[in-house]
């Protein structure tokens, strides 16, 4: 790894100050992607500002019908939380399937969401469940947050502090993992909530996570496996790479959507 400086932020102000003082500084929230990327020399931040020690960044609470997860809460803690299992069992099982156990002990929801890897699991959950991303500056609907490959609406010095999830009537996530990386080759999150059916797809889009209109229409009219399988998802905007063609991914989207509906 290239040399870097480690700073443990004691407060949001501390972190903002450290980030502001150095253009090349970046946030460390778990590092299960960032450190791996640094080892490959694909990232070389001059300073890592660790936000995990900041008050209020870790923890899970229920505020009425809203589930609030602190940004530095690990995947293992989300998966094992009785509150999450009760409020959003689909979210708990999604967290239980991220990477492997050692990754889940360290990786955090805020880190995953901020990185917006096109094959990550959490962005699909936020989009389908209609979650809200809370930062030190504002609150943003997931629909307005994710912005293309590894892109988000986050500004310089803006730090995710929590993610809020409304309660869905029914929801589930089904993923076809790429066996070497354990990321989603295709992952589909289906949710039935107050504003109808929302379906998001990760791992398959040229521009990262997206909502599937054909699947939302099909499942909105008929919440069934057959409807998911019969939807015309097409191959427009889908990724082709060594792991699978756009056509293969299009088929997997339907299969995963059907599996998700079956388990919701």
């Amino acid at each position, binding site marked *: 790894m290239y040399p870097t400086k480690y700073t443990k932020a004691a407060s949001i102000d501390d972190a903002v100050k450290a980030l502001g003082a150095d253009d090349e500084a970046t946030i460390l929230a778990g590092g299960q992607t960032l*450190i791996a990327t640094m080892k490959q020399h694909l990232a070389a931040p001059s300073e890592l500002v660790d936000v995990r020690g900041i008050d209020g960044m870790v923890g899970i609470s229920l505020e009425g019908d809203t589930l609030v997860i602190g940004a530095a809460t690990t995947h293992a803690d989300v998966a094992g939380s009785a509150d999450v299992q009760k409020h959003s069992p689909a979210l708990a099982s999604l967290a239980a399937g991220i990477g492997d156990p050692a990754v889940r002990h360290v990786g955090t929801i805020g880190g995953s969401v901020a990185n917006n890897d096109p094959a990550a699991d959490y962005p699909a959950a936020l989009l389908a469940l209609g979650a809200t991303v809370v930062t030190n500056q504002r609150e943003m609907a997931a629909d307005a947050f994710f912005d293309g490959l590894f892109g988000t609406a986050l500004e310089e010095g803006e730090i995710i502090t929590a993610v809020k999830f409304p309660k869905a009537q029914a929801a589930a996530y089904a993923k076809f993992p790429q066996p070497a990386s354990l990321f989603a080759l295709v992952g589909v999150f289906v949710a039935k909530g107050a504003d109808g059916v929302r379906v998001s797809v990760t791992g398959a889009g040229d521009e990262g996570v997206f909502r599937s209109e054909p699947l939302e229409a099909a499942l909105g009219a008929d919440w069934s496996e057959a409807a998911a399988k019969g939807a015309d998802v097409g191959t427009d905007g889908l990724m082709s790479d060594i792991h699978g063609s756009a056509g293969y991914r299009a088929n997997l989207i339907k299969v995963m959507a059907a599996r998700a509906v079956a388990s919701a």
Partner: protein
Amino acid sequence: MTKINMTVNGKAVTREVSGETLLSEFLREDLRLTGTHIGCDTSQCGACVVHIDGKAVKSCTTLAAAIDGAEVTTIEGLADGDLHPMQASFKEHHGLQCGFCTPGMIMSGVDMVNRYKAEGRDVTAEAVRHELEGNICRCTGYHNIVKAVQDAATKM
């Protein structure tokens, strides 16, 4: 440089480390605990797994500076005079050949069995295979590793 204090295998350790020092480097090069292996540079093989505050973690994907105050257990800290039941079961069931992946397998196995016991879940062969997804072995074909973990679960 950051000054860190931690407990490694029950012993207090104080050192100055640079920001980019990985826990795996710290353990192997500074503390000469070379039982923790480095099998890849992509954070995928699990040979480097140690316990931090009782949880399995990839030491190659953890900064030493970030775990000030932590309690770290490596493969060297597991046996207490006699082999740990997980180590004994790997020996008994021939759960290793070259042994390169073994420290990580054992640390992941112990973590898994501890968690499953605490939650009252059965350590089935399927569960072991799923839990060891992040630990790669090039030699054994995994069958004996699964047997060893299941056997150790009855003795831990």
